């Protein structure tokens, strides 16, 4: 593995310390870069060094990977205006770090001449990349793991999705035979509210189509990405609550608006995985899906390039993908899986 340190500055002058992983053939032929942004408040390497583990599919295809620390996080300079974790997540979900992501793209363009970037990462990284997609065409594709749909610290109470409640219900049913669980229940240590809601959800009617706690920027940013012909790879762990939020609070209510862009969305749920893909099998599956998605995108762009239409790059391939209305590899139907 060949890594080098990149220290760049954001618009406010903070030094952001990043790591650039170079592909085996070096940087000279690279036309596309992957930019993995700080996931929430964890550092540029991610929980359990996730970003090192998900880099091989990019590197093997000649795509360098830049891991970025946002201001006030990791080793970078700067501070955050709040130290409540919920408020920090909220700020990130509202686009607090977009300029830092843009600074990374500026550096790639000015220093390496790379104008096409696959941007994203885990959780807060993915939503920051979506914000960036609205007005930065250098973001050629979205790479999202556990994309959050909900806005943290919202005045609206968190509405647990029906899918998540069903998952809790199944967990509670499995615990019926465990004496320790009964002890927790009898000694008032259970979450009775969640227990009741998970059991009652089966008989309660579904709420309104658009959840009040959904991030208001999610639909506009996501549709901006798709309308400009850019593709998105969306990976969720099966046990990640964000997955149910995304399906029930965004995919289902917005199904009609998303339908014309279906071919651009590669959406996969990784079996038995959690939010951070904390199991080696989950990483292997994520990488398999990423490889298939990258190959599909790059093959299309190279095809276009060979026909002399445009320079190679994942962006041009995405345009063709959209026009051709092909299904992307690894995709599930966007109307898929009803939550309850």
């Amino acid at each position, binding site marked *: 593995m060949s890594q080098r340190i990149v220290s760049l500055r954001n618009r406010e002058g903070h030094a952001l*310390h990043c*790591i650039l992983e170079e592909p085996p053939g070096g940087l000279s032929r690279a036309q596309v870069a992957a930019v993995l942004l700080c996931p929430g408040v964890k550092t540029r*390497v991610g*929980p359990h060094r996730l970003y090192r583990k998900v880099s091989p599919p990019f590197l093997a295809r000649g795509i360098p990977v830049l891991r970025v620390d946002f201001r006030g996080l990791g080793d970078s*300079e700067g501070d*955050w205006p709040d130290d*409540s*974790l919920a408020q920090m997540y909220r700020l990130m979900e509202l686009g607090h770090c977009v300029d830092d992501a843009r600074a990374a793209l500026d550096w790639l363009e000015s220093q390496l001449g790379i104008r096409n970037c696959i941007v994203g990462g885990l959780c807060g990284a993915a939503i920051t990349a979506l914000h960036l997609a609205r007005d930065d065409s250098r973001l050629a594709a979205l790479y999202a793991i556990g994309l959050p749909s909900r806005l943290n610290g919202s005045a609206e109470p968190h509405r647990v999705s029906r899918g998540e409640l069903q998952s809790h219900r199944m*967990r509670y049913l499995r615990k019926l035979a465990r004496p320790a669980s009964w002890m927790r229940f009898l000694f008032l240590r259970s979450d009775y509210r969640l227990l009741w809601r998970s059991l009652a959800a089966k008989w309660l009617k579904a709420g309104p189509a658009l959840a009040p706690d959904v991030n208001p920027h999610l639909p506009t940013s996501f549709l901006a990405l798709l309308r400009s012909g850019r593709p998105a790879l969306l990976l969720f762990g099966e046990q990640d609550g964000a997955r149910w939020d995304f399906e029930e609070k965004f995919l289902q209510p917005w199904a009609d608006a998303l339908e014309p862009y279906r071919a651009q969305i590669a959406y996969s749920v990784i079996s038995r995985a959690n939010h951070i893909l904390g199991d080696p099998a989950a990483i292997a599956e994520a990488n398999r899906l990423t490889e298939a998605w990258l190959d599909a995108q790059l093959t299309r762009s190279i095809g276009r390039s060979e026909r002399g239409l445009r320079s190679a790059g994942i962006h041009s391939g995405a345009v063709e993908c959209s026009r051709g209305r092909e299904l992307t590899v690894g995709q599930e139907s966007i109307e898929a899986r009803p939550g309850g």
Partner: protein
Amino acid sequence: MNETPFFFELGEHRLFAILHRPKSGPARHGVVLCHALAEEKLWSHRVYVSVARELAREGIAVLRFDFRGEGDSDLEFEDCGLASRTADALRAAEVLREHEPLLSGCVFLGHRLGCAVAAMATAGSGARAQGLVAWDPVASGRDYLMQILRSVLASELARTGQARTRAALLESLDAGETVVIDGYRMGSPLYRDLIGLEWSRLLEAARCPVLALNGTCEPPFWRESKRFHNRAPTMSAHTIQWLREQLA
């Protein structure tokens, strides 16, 4: 700020480091910071950055680095134990002296499991070890391991609806297999080191001045809570005061 990120080498491996220097003039003293394990390190990271900056303002050069198997350094987590971490800390002390040739030695500052590493590094440094500062040291490696295994079982139960027993996990580790903890694979080197680790014995063996601070003077910033901790004001203040006195 006078901060320089760089990689240093240990054999064929590269370790990520950041050197914090005083804003002006040469450093009067040096500190090597030995971080906590895995996710404890990630939650504490910003505290390390802050204390390094505070020490630099006191005229002390601080080398923060990632142990091999963690952060941006080489090797996989499962390949590394306390021995590799101690070798990393000793090499980091050499690197600090290479950058600050006027320093005759350094203080090792450890946090949680990093305290054990710092203590072993002071033992390996001989007269060059000018002090040991321990922030909430892990008292018993075995107890710490059991806590870790409890969290493995809880996450297995949540994920699959069933979990192995702790005895079964220990059998796997004894057999040389790895166990996944929050995404990190724990292998034999760390497992065997943790089983035998007793902080009190390391403390008895220390041949340099020691400041040991227990964790109750700060909120537990090394694990997830409702606050994002970017400073440990009490521990930092005690450390700075002690260093002023010791190194005067």
